[in-house]
């Protein structure tokens, strides 16, 4: 379809703003833009149609099954959006005096309290705008902590090889050196390797748990103890918290700091890439280092406090993605403690049911009851038929379901990582199992067909190499 720029011409547009009602001020010539803007307004009819056409070319959770492993694409409740649209939340300026935004501060304070209870952490900051931003912030806390102790040689963060790519990247951004350690044959942290890796230079250890294979690390307490004994701190990547709410808490497992993804576990929409929200929780020992300002209670009132000389400072403007927090709080209040537990139970139940339905067809390399997600391997299929995980993913598109996360974790070849979430019904899961089985047969019978998929989508497979080699990342306006 055409770009928005190709759909209009000069002089179009709507009358949105009123005429000037005060004397006009002329900008001095030296400050004036000389290069003419190209952006032309579209009439409303055409805007409406353009974005309707674009929306038709997007697949969201409301379009169907979306088992993108580790992304927790659960249903996004409408009441959360409605609440986040209340004028009392959308029309307040971030620099209003505290006494005029008691509701907003209450939102942040209540969210902090409940997330603390869910995770076993004692303090939370909502400044981080996404998961990776949370990691970065949490690692900065670890850094500040060691520095405050005068322990300046601790400059290494240990990361298992099954970790999300953001973990090592955030550690590097925060000024650490990254030490990768391999997984053991069960897909868990190799405790012996961890023991070898820790030492006087260990600043901390980052763990995603349940990990990206959907496994809860049975040695969790030993792991965190090893790190603590070496003088390091434990960081919990909460991306997969959807498996354990109300069942176990990172704070009780020996973790000192963690982030959550409100746009995963707490049902806020991901918006095709964001906004997310990556609040960071920590134990008391790290509290002095949290970003400022923080919400405090002063008698019966909430205040934003700027006090804290040891703070790492600010990691974003203002207080984070506030409306995302509003949605998450609405979600928590709706479900309550029991509802959150039921959520995790069903997330795990659905994952196990789906795994059980698929495992006879698709090998599950690391078996056992899984948590909220699991990994299947298409390696055998590829050897037999030449059909890769990528081909299978593309073939799934023609069935109208979203493919799983592919080729991750790296320790499984031709991996498909599936996370159905708790909001899918049994019928939906049964339908998906049937599709996967049918597709498997198809792949064996007509591998070439699968390799040529997708066929029903609005575009065929795009040439990614061409895109990267000769990047065209903006439209060039025709010169006048």
């Amino acid at each position, binding site marked *: 379809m055409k*770009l*928005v720029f190709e759909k*209009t011409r000069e002089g179009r*547009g*709507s009358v*949105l703003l009123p005429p000037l009602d*005060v*004397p006009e*001020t002329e900008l001095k010539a030296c400050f004036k*833009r*000389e*290069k*003419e*803007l190209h*952006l032309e*307004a579209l009439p409303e009819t055409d805007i*409406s149609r353009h974005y309707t056409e*674009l929306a*038709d070319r997007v697949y969201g*959770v*409301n379009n169907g099954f979306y088992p993108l492993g580790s992304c927790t694409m659960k249903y996004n409740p409408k009441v959360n959006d409605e*609440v986040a649209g209340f*004028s*009392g939340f*959308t029309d307040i*300026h971030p*620099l209003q005096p505290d006494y005029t935004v008691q*509701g*907003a501060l209450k939102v942040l304070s209540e969210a902090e309290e409940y997330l603390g*209870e*869910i995770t076993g952490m004692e303090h939370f900051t909502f400044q981080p*705008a996404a998961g990776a931003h949370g990691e970065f912030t949490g690692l900065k806390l670890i850094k500040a902590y060691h*520095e405050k102790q005068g322990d300046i040689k601790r400059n290494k963060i240990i990361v298992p090889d099954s970790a999300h*790519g*953001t973990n*090592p990247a955030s550690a*590097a951004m925060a000024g650490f050196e990254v030490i990768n350690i391999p997984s053991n044959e069960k897909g868990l942290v190799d405790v012996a390797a961890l023991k070898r890796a820790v030492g006087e230079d260990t600043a901390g250890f980052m763990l995603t748990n349940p990990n990206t294979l959907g496994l809860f690390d*049975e040695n969790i307490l030993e792991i965190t103890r090893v790190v603590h004994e070496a003088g390091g701190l434990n960081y919990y990547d909460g991306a997969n918290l959807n498996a354990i709410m109300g069942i176990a808490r990172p704070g009780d497992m020996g973790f000192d700091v963690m982030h959550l993804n409100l746009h995963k576990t707490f049902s806020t*929409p991901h918006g095709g890439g964001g906004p997310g929200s990556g609040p960071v929780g920590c134990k008391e020992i790290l509290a002095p280092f949290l970003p400022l300002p923080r919400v405090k209670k002063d008698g019966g009132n909430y205040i934003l406090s700027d006090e804290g000389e040891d703070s790492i*400072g*600010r*990691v974003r*403007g*203002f207080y984070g993605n506030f*409306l995302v927090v509003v949605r998450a709080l*609405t979600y928590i209040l709706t*479900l309550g*403690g029991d509802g959150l537990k039921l959520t995790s139970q069903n997330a795990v*139940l659905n994952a196990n049911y789906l795994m*059980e339905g698929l495992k006879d067809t698709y090998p599950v390399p690391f078996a056992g009851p899984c*948590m909220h997600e699991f990994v299947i391997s298409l390696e055998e299929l590829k050897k037999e038929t030449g059909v890769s995980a990528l081909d299978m993913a593309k073939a799934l598109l023609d069935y109208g379901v*979203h493919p799983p996360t592919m080729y991750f974790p790296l320790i499984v070849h031709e991996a498909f990582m599936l996370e159905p979430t708790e909001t899918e019904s*049994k019928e939906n899961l049964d339908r998906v199992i049937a599709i996967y089985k049918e597709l498997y047969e198809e792949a064996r019978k007509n591998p070439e067909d699968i390799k040529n998929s997708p066929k029903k989508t*609005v575009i065929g*497979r795009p040439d990614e190499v*061409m*895109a990267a080699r000769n*990047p*065209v990342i*903006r439209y060039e306006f025709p010169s006048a």
Partner: protein
Amino acid sequence: MGTYVPGTGEEQKELLKSLGVAGMEELFVTIPKEVRLNGPLKIPDGVSELQVRKKMAGTAGENRVFPSLFRGCGAYRHYIPSIVKQVAAKEEFMTAYTPYQAEISQGTLQAIFEFQTMICDLTGLNAANASVYDGCTAAAEAVIMCRERKRNKVLLSGALNPQIIETVKTYMAGTGTEIIVVPAADGVTDKTELKRLLDEKTACFLIQQPNHYGLLEDYEELGKLTKEAGAKYVMSCNPILLGILKTPGEYGADIAVGEGQSLGLSLSYGGPYLGFMAAVSELMRKLPGRIAGQTLDTRGEKAYVLTLQAREQHIRREKAASSICSNEALCALTASVYMSVMGKEGLRQAATLSMSKAHYLAEKLCGLEGFSMAYEGDYVNEFTTVYKGNTEKLLRGLEDYGILGGLPLKGEDRGKIIWCATELNSKEEIDELIDRIKEVQTHEAGI
């Protein structure tokens, strides 16, 4: 208790049974007993939708929405056309993930490609990304882009929004980079100081247009000085004002960043907002985060994909340009719709209206007892006054009339107020502000 689990009760049992499992507990056997929670979470019992909506409406009601608002400093109340909100609320855009599967995500990808193009057009630069968290982190990411092995000194204008300075400092702390704030004099960067501080170790100099106090600086000259030292020139801009102001591209900037909230996003107590970034083509591969690119599909048709992923965390891990993964895609889409509705004429109109209202406001304010302009320079939509009276009492007094006045400064800037006007402030509203100030002053004098 509310729930979004479709099948409770009977269905749960069916599923458990088909797994050959007696109860939920059995699914969690891999979790060591020692870390399993014994009791329920201490969170209030869940409630029905009706109740939660009522509670949250009550909480929202505890915030005061000011009908009349003259505060900016990084968050601006501009007019949001109806169609902008309506398009951004489309479920498909809302509920999708990052467009990993290009074939069923052409809508998101094309929208990003269009957004990138618009940001390039606005800034006069040639390479933009899909967005970062906000204006402050955009500035920090720009600084990271400029770091080189032999250039580890970063100069920040002292007339930057303080939140930008704080964020850059946090980002760079412990990375071996030296951050120096170039002091401001008369509300603008002190050129002599800048000249003194620039050297062969300087990675970049970051400045704001207009700056924190609302002033336009000598961007031409500052840029020249910076480039002469071989450092990168980074500008943090107000995107609506770029409709009329000389662009970073024209000033020879290497990178332009900014807060995109003005482009159709509500104030929302600070977020979600939108960080935008654009750079000269040579720096394209140093941009952090997602970038959409154009290519061809197997049918030979135009198609869009996430590209240049070799920069990114999921490929390069600890060697990535940045760890950013989720960005502010829906905000970028909102901004795109806003720009499509407004077009260049609309942006120009919004900028011009804001500027003219700000000047009218300044003139009226300075006609009042005790008010004078803090600085002499040129300004656009924001400016700073000095007030001889009690600023706190003044602003509180205005609040009683439903007016949020300018932002009072603290510390050595105490007594100064930064005012802002946009197209939403009618002449009537400004005149009322002036009258109310007089009333407050009279009242105060009376006591």
